[in-house]
């Protein structure tokens, strides 16, 4: 069977005007709908002095108030859902900034929309029936595993539902099942390449791998080059967050920006004052979900810094592209695909009386994987002459951090007074990764 160029050629290549008409119609419906069905949005709109009838064209979107991650947290678990819970077919949960997680929900329609979005994206990466996709994103509460799985099945590919970890087995199965594509974090793929080499297996020469769908953490063009040349594959960037559904958008074979499906999502890029940036300038990405039912988001400040490109792509797709994510608008760190906020670490440390209020977070890349070290000062009062007490304290801090972050961290006890005293948040985080 010949390779499909497009999953849905008509919509993916629709003229910009047609896409804008769809967006305008859907935006009006969305605003009407959330005003009726959500106490949260109704109050927000009232505070901003805006009513559904004020939103007529796409330009009117700036009249609407922003939505923040904090809103999801404050309305934990399902306070922002806009459908009765008996219409929700699935939940996903991501770790929160201060211990409370963020819960997202999906109607049947939401899952379908997520799946077809990914079907379009994976097709744009040159994948389809006959491909064997090793899905090495985490299955479970994290959106990556199940999301990619559904999308890959939709395009008729054979999925190996691998999940994370057990690297040697991953490599054996990749080779033995003739996997043609893999989805995981870029750092994990580099790690796999390293482990494969030690096992005497060359991913380039001994496997059928031709493509990798990589995301959930920032990575550079240099990393892409390294992956592509060392493994003999094409590496595509994938973007999405649990608030938007999960992984949704990828680059096409041109590898020149991530196509965002405009019939489902409306993008803005704004500056620090909340005003739109000039075309081609970088700014904070703001997303309005046009099709989501269970948890629609209006002008959601997702926190990623990027550049928007509205020009038609060489591949023929007319949907706007976002350039590689350039950083974060807040202090969030992404470590091995997991979001980490310094405030989470702070709140954990506050519950442990043996450590002082000063701490430092160090993000490093050890080998190919990210590594997080939390340095804390031992308080004078807590210091015991016994080494075992101090070692247990380290383990206790590690355990408490793991509970909240879902991430293994290193803990380093340091002398009182040696960590920089807070002169703003930035000093608490030292990011030594060269991304």
């Amino acid at each position: 069977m010949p390779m499909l160029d497009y999953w849905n050629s008509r919509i993916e290549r629709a003229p910009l005007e047609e896409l804008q008409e769809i967006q305008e119609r859907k935006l009006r419906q969305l605003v009407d709908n959330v005003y009726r069905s959500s106490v949260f949005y109704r109050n927000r709109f009232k505070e901003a002095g805006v009513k559904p009838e004020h939103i007529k064209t796409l330009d009117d979107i700036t009249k609407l108030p922003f939505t923040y991650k904090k809103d999801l947290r404050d309305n934990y678990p399902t306070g922002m859902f806009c459908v009765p819970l008996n219409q929700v077919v699935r939940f996903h949960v991501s770790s929160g900034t201060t211990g409370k997680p963020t819960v997202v929900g999906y109607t049947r329609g939401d899952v379908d929309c997520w799946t077809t979005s990914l079907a379009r994206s994976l097709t744009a990466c040159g994948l389809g029936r006959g491909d064997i996709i090793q899905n090495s994103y985490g299955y479970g509460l994290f959106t990556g595993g199940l999301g990619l799985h559904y999308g890959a099945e939709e395009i008729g590919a054979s999925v190996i539902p691998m999940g994370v970890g057990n690297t040697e087995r991953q490599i054996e199965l990749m080779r033995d099942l003739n996997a043609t594509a893999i989805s995981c974090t870029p750092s994990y793929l580099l790690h796999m390449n390293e482990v494969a080499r030690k096992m005497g297996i060359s991913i380039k020469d001994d496997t059928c791998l031709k493509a990798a769908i990589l995301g959930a953490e920032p990575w550079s063009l240099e990393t892409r080059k390294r992956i592509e040349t060392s493994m003999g594959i094409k590496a595509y960037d994938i973007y999405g967050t649990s608030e938007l559904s999960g992984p949704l958008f990828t680059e096409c074979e041109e590898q020149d920006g991530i196509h965002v499906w405009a019939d489902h999502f409306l993008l803005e890029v704004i500056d620090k004052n909340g005003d739109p940036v000039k075309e081609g300038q970088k700014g904070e990405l703001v997303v309005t979900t046009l099709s989501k039912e269970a948890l629609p988001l209006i002008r959601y400040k997702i926190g990623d810094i990027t550049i928007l490109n509205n020009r038609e792509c060489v591949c023929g797709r007319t949907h706007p592209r976002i350039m590689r994510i350039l950083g974060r608008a807040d202090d969030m760190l992404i470590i091995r695909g997991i979001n980490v906020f310094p405030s989470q670490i702070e709140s954990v440390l506050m519950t442990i009386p043996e450590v002082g209020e000063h701490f430092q977070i160090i993000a490093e890349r050890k080998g190919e994987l990210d590594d997080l070290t939390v340095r804390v000062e031992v308080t004078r009062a807590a210091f015991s002459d016994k080494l075992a007490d101090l070692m247990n304290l380290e383990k206790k801090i590690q355990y408490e951090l793991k509970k909240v972050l879902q991430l293994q961290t290193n803990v380093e006890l340091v002398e009182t007074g040696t960590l920089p005293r807070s002169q703003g948040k930035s000093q608490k985080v030292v990011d030594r990764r060269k991304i």
Partner: protein
Amino acid sequence: MSGTIKQISLFAENKPGRLSKIAESLSKAKINIRAFTIAEAGDFGVIRMVVDDPDKAYKTLQGQGFAVSETEVIGVEMKDVPGGLADIANTLGKNNVNIDYAYAFVTTSNLALLIIRVDNVKAALKVLKAAKIRIVDDKEVSRI
């Protein structure tokens, strides 16, 4: 408790220059170190020492910002002959006293001293005395 020695312990990161900072502080305060040991656990360690003036050492180091603690340890005179350590260890072991850690030093007067930290100081002093093993206390240490 009489008959014991006040040991100074402090928390130190395991990195270059830390020990010299501690030693300098003590030197400036004219405190003489009698015995000294470092127990390390990866990134950090615990420095333990017996000094001629423990109270002054404690204040000095605390004033420098170190996490310091005082611990009661026992100084035992060890015969500088084969079996010297065995006598002491046997006496304590037989009487169910556990040694948490120990370190030894020899003084200029050719006195071999063993510093021990035990789980039951009172019991240790009692059984050591009964076994006619000589205990060296604070006062004697500061005179060395």
